[in-house]
């Protein structure tokens, strides 16, 4: 690292997403966070003041900071993810504000798939709803490492402790059935600003941290898999120039673990091994590369390697599974139903192949969080467990161990649309 990178350039990046039912106050909360942390510019503020008046509101509607599409402003709901950014001296934040409406669940999953943390809002007046359950379940499926349940609109229930405690108990009931690691609870009012950035004086009974404090202090250092080296090859770099006649680098992103010059790596699917000759990033030669760096790796031996192959280290306990039959949890996104025994294009890491849905094992009942093996019809927003058969071997880890090598999407070959997200069991 050069000297320029220490000091004020040295911040951590935290990605978080909002979730929860329609109108629970997600966009308002993000507006409040941005406003109270002074991340809103004067011209943006003037613009949303004008827009608030035009839509007939009395006060400034902070949700308009993320609801930027014409259709969203007309309907007063969020339709697609909006990305917003702010920084405090400690961290830079990337926020994905996602829609609560069930019709746009796919956009919620889009925003949540890369998040370190999810803020799930619950309207204090309505408590846990079906969408709260669905989003909590999706957050656990996606293995979002940190979940913060914000009980919002406390101003509308006289800031009563019992309301907060009841909702907390209801959510605990759900989360005990799911695999979520780190769950926190904060009573807030996004509209007024209680416990968002500043502590509320109206809820003396709450002695936990504010939402902002949590976001700044969540421990994210161990969110990535740091032990199993995996690098899917994206692009083979061959300059064939006078200066570099024999350079042959494998360009890719280290998705987990780390790699040193001199290490022995194994190439999948061929199984050949070789030693690492150089690791390059532009004009810098590195001794070590680690997740999530993008680098170019040269090997000692001439092996036939192309896009879709994967470099892995065999020194570790885990090695990827290689196989053509996989068990997957699927979220279905499309209004065209899944076709039994249908064929789809499957993308995982940098490889693409065809696959067939061999069987549907069960569908999750979102209300009871129980498995339903009777109704196996798969439509929009269903979450199901399926068996897929691929046309060529896939190398993967289970999603729980490695988010990057265990995730996949299905594409409908007739419409080119991404119709499902899958997590390999």
């Amino acid at each position, binding site marked *: 690292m050069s000297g320029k990178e220490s000091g004020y350039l040295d911040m951590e990046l935290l990605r978080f997403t909002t979730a929860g039912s329609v109108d629970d106050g997600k966009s308002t909360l993000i507006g409040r966070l941005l406003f109270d942390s002074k991340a809103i510019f004067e011209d943006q503020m003037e613009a949303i003041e004008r827009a608030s008046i035009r839509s007939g509101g009395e006060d400034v509607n902070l949700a308009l900071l993320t609801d930027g599409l014409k259709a969203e402003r007309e309907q007063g709901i969020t339709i697609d993810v909006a990305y917003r950014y702010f920084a405090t001296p400690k961290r830079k934040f990337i926020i994905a504000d996602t829609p609560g409406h069930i019709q746009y669940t796919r956009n919620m999953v889009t925003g949540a798939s890369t998040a370190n943390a999810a803020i799930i809002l619950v309207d204090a007046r309505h408590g846990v709803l079906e969408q709260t359950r669905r989003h909590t379940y999706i957050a656990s499926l996606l293995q979002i490492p940190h979940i913060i349940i914000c009980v919002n609109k406390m101003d509308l229930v006289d800031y009563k402790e019992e309301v907060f405690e009841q909702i907390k108990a209801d959510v605990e009931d759900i989360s005990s059935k799911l695999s979520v690691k780190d769950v926190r609870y904060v009573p807030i009012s996004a509209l007024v600003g209680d416990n968002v950035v500043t502590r509320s004086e109206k809820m003396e009974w709450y002695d936990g941290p504010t939402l902002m404090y949590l976001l700044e202090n969540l421990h994210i250092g161990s969110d990535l898999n740091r032990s199993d080296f995996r690098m899917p090859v994206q692009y083979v770099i061959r300059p064939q120039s006078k200066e570099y006649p024999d350079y042959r680098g494998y360009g890719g992103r280290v998705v987990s673990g780390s790699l040193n010059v001199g290490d022995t790596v194994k190439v999948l699917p061929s199984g050949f091994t070789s030693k690492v000759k150089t690791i390059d990033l*532009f004009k810098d030669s590195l001794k070590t590369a680690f997740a999530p760096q993008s680098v170019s790796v040269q090997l000692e031996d001439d092996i036939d390697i192309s896009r879709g192959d994967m470099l892995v280290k065999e020194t570790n306990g885990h090695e990827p599974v290689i196989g053509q039959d996989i068990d997957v949890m699927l979220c279905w996104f499309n209004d065209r139903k899944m076709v039994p025994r249908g064929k789809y294009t499957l993308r995982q890491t*940098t490889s693409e192949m065809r696959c067939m849905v061999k069987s549907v094992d069960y569908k999750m009942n979102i209300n009871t969080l129980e498995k339903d093996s009777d109704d196996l019809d798969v439509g929009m927003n269903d979450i199901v467990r399926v068996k897929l058969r691929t046309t060529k071997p896939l190398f993967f880890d289970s999603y729980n161990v490695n988010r990057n090598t265990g995730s996949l*999407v299905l594409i409908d070959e007739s419409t*080119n649309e991404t119709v499902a997200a899958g997590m390999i069991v």
Partner: protein
Amino acid sequence: MDKYQINHLRELEAESIFVIREVAAQFENPVMLFSGGKDSIVMFHLARKAFWPAKVPFPLMHIDTGHNFPETIEYRDNLMEKTGARCIVKYVQDTIDQGKAVEETGINASRNKMQTITLLDAIEQEKFDAAMGGGRRDEEKARAKERFFSHRDEFGQWDPKNQRPELWNLFNAKKNMGEHFRVFPISNWTEMDVWQYIYMEEIELPSLYFTHKREVFQRDGVWMAKAPFMQLKEGEKLEMRDVRCRTIGDVTCTGVTLSTANNIQDIIQEVAATRVTERGGRADDKRSESAMEDRKREGYF
């Protein structure tokens, strides 16, 4: 930070390089749009990093309105010579001469909107299947909604209500004949990130970004530069001031900032202290509440 951690700028860099390599791998004939502004300069720098020591495996393309600051063109030509990259230049003037667009008239006339026609024409002519742009989500509220890989129909249009889900880092580049993609490798960068990165990487910039003396006048609260094709309204008068550009677009629609910052560190401090967004000075965005969304739907950058 521990040994196996990188800072926010390095993480953004790694993400952008990943996206650029995906474009090179998944498309047959991609192009990178280059305006000569800081965002496209950073994007091109990232592309060089992505393929080094090989050359960038796609051309750049500049949609030239003819209303540029001369410094931009000079910088562009120098950069191409130094890096050995190829830059295709398409002229809005040609689009006008072919009768495909009519020059706006009046005092606020701008060629900004016509760029879309020239751009879409160029994509069709050259059969580009992907065009990378330096748009950032923090710039504007419609941009905040954009995917990394953004699908365009055969008319080059964007349908913001019906975007493909984009999960993890799995980008779906499938399309029918005649359709194309816009890809935004620096989606997640803020203005501050861009400046800090320029500082860290010691990237050279056009002189326009640093303070210089220039004849300017005020219009709707924004300082504008004097240029041959700019007409003054009544009451507007030219003054010599110390200014710099915060963004570089057309002379007709880009405001300049009063500033004495002559190095990147000073600019970073200025950006940290400023209370208006960088597009706050751009007349093209001020036309209406949804000016950007409307232009993007039609196929703007």
